[in-house]
């Protein structure tokens, strides 16, 4: 049996088993996943924090080292996408949808409910809220993505290996990547991707529905949520079939343009000076305390807060990393490692910081000056607070429609790229997977989301996806070792040979 058929078959089987479990006994699934999730976060929270910090150091270290000159492709290859197309796709796959909701909600929620050592709704809480939002959405998630995408891009485009996570382990495992261990890694990646994306699709659709219901009085209920998922499914499968260079790229660029428009509008129409001050202040706070932020569990006071927020985020980013990493790798061919690392680490982060400064800042300003009730709304229902903020602006309805369009397109791009990635992972790393596989995974993702939405097993499955982040953290750490071994080999043996060959040609 071919390797990719094994991965395809086993992943499908595992997915179906969990879905059936979720349908038949959602409470049991919830209990089991809660137990595993709590145990992991309690006992290995420190490991998430430490590993993520290692990924940041690793990424920056590699970029600054001579290895930064290595090209993610052959030496004479040029980048496949323009900078704008590339950044747009990075952003759409990596953050997009979450940022739209949390850009406003997160600073407000931290402002109201900070860790135990801070007084809620105080100046210190506001400053903490902004800094922590920057931290959760800043360079750390991107460093996680960098590790996996760098490895996939290097082994796929430079070493001509199949675009699979298992391929990246050749320096460590040798031919064993074609055996049990390789398959296990790929199955784990598929498993994390489908559960991560399905739960996001389900929970996100519920958020869209709740937002639309709150703002426009749209009907509530499962059928309406399923209708939203169905529409998104048709859109993302169509986009996925048209391929990377057309569908996903065009949608991602459209998204970023829409985002920039909303950003500029709120920046200009809102408290501009406050936003600029907020950006500068939080950037200073973030940069000056990045090491303590990276490694501080608030163990003696506020640990529960860290577990609920920072550790949840870190586990979630890691759970998403196989999918986002493989996608980022797919669009980064032809870049040097240095260019890749600094662009992936800094450009989306800067846009994210701007988004938080503008939307979080505008919301905090309203809360501080006019007591607009946004903080309360954020605590009660995250998905409505963005629309409530827009309601305080001129052309508020227009902004809401734009935001819903943005959300929908972000959903489409996330699901679209996930479908593309799943199809690659279950086609033996074939970078042009068949449309049949894309359709199968697309429909399966949405079906999982719908079925679990009805049975109530979505949150349980999300916890399961986060639990899968723990073994994946080990995978990511080993990827760092594998990459270093590969780079060392290339520099020690191949670079020397290439230079000698070039010199003899010159001679």
């Amino acid at each position, binding site marked *: 049996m071919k390797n990719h058929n094994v991965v395809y078959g086993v992943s499908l089987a595992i997915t179906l088993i969990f879905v059936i479990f979720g349908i038949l006994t959602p409470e049991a699934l919830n209990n089991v996943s809660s137990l595993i999730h709590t145990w992991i976060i309690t006992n290995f929270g420190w490991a998430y924090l430490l590993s993520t910090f290692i990924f940041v150091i690793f990424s920056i270290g590699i970029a600054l080292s001579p290895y930064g000159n290595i090209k993610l492709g052959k030496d004479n290859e040029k980048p496949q996408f323009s900078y704008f197309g590339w950044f747009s796709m990075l952003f759409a796959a990596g953050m997009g949808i979450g940022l739209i909701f949390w850009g406003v909600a997160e600073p407000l929620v931290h402002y109201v409910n900070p860790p135990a050592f801070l007084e809620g709704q105080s100046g210190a809480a506001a400053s903490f809220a902004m800094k922590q939002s920057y931290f959760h959405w800043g360079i750390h998630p991107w460093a996680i993505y960098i590790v996996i995408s760098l490895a996939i891009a290097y082994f796929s485009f430079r*070493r001509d290996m199949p675009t699979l996570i298992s391929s990246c382990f*050749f*320096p460590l495992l*040798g031919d064993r990547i074609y055996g049990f261990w390789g398959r296990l890694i790929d199955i784990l990646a598929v498993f994390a991707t489908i559960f991560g994306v399905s739960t996001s699709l389900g929970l996100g659709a519920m958020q869209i529905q709740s937002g639309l219901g709150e703002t426009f009085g749209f009907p509530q209920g499962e059928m309406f949520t399923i209708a939203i998922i169905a529409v998104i499914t048709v859109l993302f499968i169509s986009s996925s079939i048209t391929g990377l260079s057309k569908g996903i790229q065009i949608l991602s660029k459209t998204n970023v343009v829409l985002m920039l428009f909303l950003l500029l509008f709120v920046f200009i129409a809102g408290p501009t000076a406050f936003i600029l001050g907020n950006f500068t202040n939080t950037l200073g706070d973030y940069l000056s305390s990045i090491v303590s932020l990276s490694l501080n569990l608030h163990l003696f006071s506020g640990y529960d807060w860290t577990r609920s927020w920072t550790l949840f985020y870190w586990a979630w980013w890691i759970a998403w990393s196989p999918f986002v990493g493989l996608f980022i790798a797919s669009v980064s061919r032809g870049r040097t490692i240095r260019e890749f690392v600094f662009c992936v680490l800094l450009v989306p982060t800067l846009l994210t910081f701007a988004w938080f400064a503008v939307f979080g800042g505008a919301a905090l300003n309203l809360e501080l000056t006019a007591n607009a009730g946004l903080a309360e709304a954020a605590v009660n229902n995250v998905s409505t607070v963005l629309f409530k903020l827009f309601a305080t602006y001129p052309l508020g309805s227009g902004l809401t429609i734009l935001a819903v369009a943005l959300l929908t397109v972000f959903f489409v791009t996330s699901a679209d790229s996930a479908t593309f990635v799943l199809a690659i992972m279950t086609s033996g790393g074939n970078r042009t997977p068949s449309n049949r596989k894309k359709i199968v995974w697309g429909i399966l993702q949405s079906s999982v989301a719908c079925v679990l939405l009805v049975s109530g097993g979505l949150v349980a499955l999300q916890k399961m996806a986060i639990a899968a982040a723990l073994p994946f953290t080990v995978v990511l750490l080993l990827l760092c070792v594998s990459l270093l*071994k590969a780079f*060392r*080999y290339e520099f020690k*043996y*191949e670079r020397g040979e290439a230079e000698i060959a070039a010199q003899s040609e010159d001679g």
Partner: protein
Amino acid sequence: MGELKLFDKILLPLSFNENIEKVRELGEYLTNFDTRQIILLHVGTASKGSEQKLAPYRDVLQSFDFEVQTLFEKGETAETIDRVAVAQKVCLICFFWKRSNLLKQTILGSTIPDVNRITGKPIFIYRKTFMSQQQPSTILFATDFNNLGATLVNSLQRLGQSASQTLNILHVGLRAPDPLAERARMADIDQKLETLKEIFQSSFSGVNTLQVTGNSQKEIVKQASKTGTQIIVMGKFSHSDLRNYIMGSNSEAVSQKAKCSVFIIPHQEEA
């Protein structure tokens, strides 16, 4: 180049903690080679007591017809051993293997690794195996192909001519990043190993080649154990990279972990 006297003149540092039987075993073992002279060195003050302590070791070695000289020198142990080795123009420095106590070694240092680090002379670390009384019949030569100086090649040939029967040439490499490059690397290593095999074929009754990937230190020890090796022969560079500064060199680690004797031949001997 004149005939290489590999075991001709040996410096044997003694701390007086050595068991006399061990010294007898070493003497017997050295009769397999062409040893003519042994200098017994104690780093410390010469006194009547210390001379008395050294006498039994001298007598044991003299019983094998070796020419034995005794020396007392003051100073830092490793540095003194190296200084005497150079001054006396010995062919190699011989040590008895001692179980290393990690804590003690970390705090107080250890003579063998210290001498290994600073000396330009070959080092032979004798460890008794169940086959010590017999001729050393299997030698494992671990090479990365960078340490192949004339001294090393001649030493190995000399070892083969004097006593040993089989030579296993081992290369522990870094796996290439992809299967295609890995196949090319293995083919290249095979070719290099074959070249070495031809060089040593006339000196040994059998020469085998072996290439593995992984951690050099672990693999050398593992392969030595697997092949029933009596002596591991390794080259050593005088320079160190960052990893060596932190982790110690391969030869240091192998000499501590191996369950057989280890012969370390510095590359800088070429000069």
